[in-house]
């Protein structure tokens, strides 16, 4: 059941984010209930007057692995800068590269992402790129040394689910690195569907954070991801147009008539 990325083994296939929670207590409770072993963080310039959130301490106490992202970067150069800063701030060489120049749909820029990943791999980072569900791009990222790919299900925070499903299927079929479906997962059923289809993991943030009961939703995602993976490993039956009886036909019914 476990998943290994760059030599690190995770027993949970649910990765989480720390954004959008109403408060820190809910965030911690939700992540704990979800069983997630890796959660994302962002970086920003400190507001010297306002003081800091101090989000790190409770997360470190929780024992989850911290995955900095490059959110806010508009091109490869900014993403590389953000990754280098994050390595210092969080003492990790893991980074989720996300480069979205467009604020309305937050679509990841494939060209800048490929450039950034290539350079960051050269600099010794474990790179997890957030990308569109583009099978060709996934192969290119694999070639330059991405440790996994993180195709979107739908736009970030949109809760639309696996709108990109046919392309996710191609990526899952072709990929030699773990496929983590990121963005758009709005309900546990979406996460289960991704895992059933053979995705190696999902990353969920908004759906857990904005739930009226984030802790319970964290648990719901945990169960959904476990169920989806179990179903995948069990092997689901083939889809067909016509019926196929589950009970054997016997002469018994004829005898009644």
């Amino acid at each position, binding site marked *: 059941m476990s998943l290994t990325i760059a030599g690190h083994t995770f027993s949970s296939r649910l990765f989480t*984010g*720390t*954004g*959008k*929670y109403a408060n820190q207590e809910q*965030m911690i409770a939700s992540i704990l209930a979800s069983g997630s072993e890796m959660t*994302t*963080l*962002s*970086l*920003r*310039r*400190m*507001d*010297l007057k306002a003081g*800091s*959130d*101090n*989000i*790190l301490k409770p997360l470190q106490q929780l024992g989850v692995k*911290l995955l*900095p*992202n490059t*959110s806010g970067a508009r091109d490869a150069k900014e993403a590389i*800068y953000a990754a*280098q*800063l*994050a*390595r*210092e*701030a*969080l*003492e990790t060489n893991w980074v989720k590269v996300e480069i979205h120049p467009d604020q309305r749909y937050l679509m990841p820029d494939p060209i800048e992402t490929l450039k950034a990943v290539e350079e960051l791999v050269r600099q010794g980072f474990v790179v997890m790129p957030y990308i569109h569900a583009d099978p060709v791009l996934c192969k290119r990222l694999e070639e330059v040394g991405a440790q996994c790919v993180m195709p979107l299900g739908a736009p*970030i*925070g949109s809760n639309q689910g696996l709108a990109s499903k046919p392309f996710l299927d191609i990526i899952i079929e072709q990929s030699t690195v773990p496929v983590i479906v990121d963005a758009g997962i709005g309900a546990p059923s979406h996460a289960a569907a991704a895992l059933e289809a053979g995705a190696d993991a999902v*990353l969920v*943030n*908004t759906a857990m954070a904005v739930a009226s009961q984030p802790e319970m939703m964290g648990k719901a995602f945990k169960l959904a991801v476990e169920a989806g993976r179990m179903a995948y490993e069990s092997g689901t039956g083939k889809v067909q147009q016509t019926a196929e009886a589950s009970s054997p036909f016997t002469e018994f019914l004829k005898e009644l008539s």
Partner: protein
Amino acid sequence: MQLYVNDEPVQSEHSTLTELLNSIVSAEQRVAVAVNQQVVPRSQWSECLLKDNDRIDIFESIAGG
């Protein structure tokens, strides 16, 4: 000397990056620092000499997906 810390003008007599940071950030706080947009690893803070008009950017972790 004149420094800019996160774009704010600051008059400072601190000669090294460590000294400047000690005056701004608490010891347990985990930050990343760039001088003139070059990331300076923590291990080099004490040797990093500041000069007039340097731009120091201090970053911290925040919630995000």
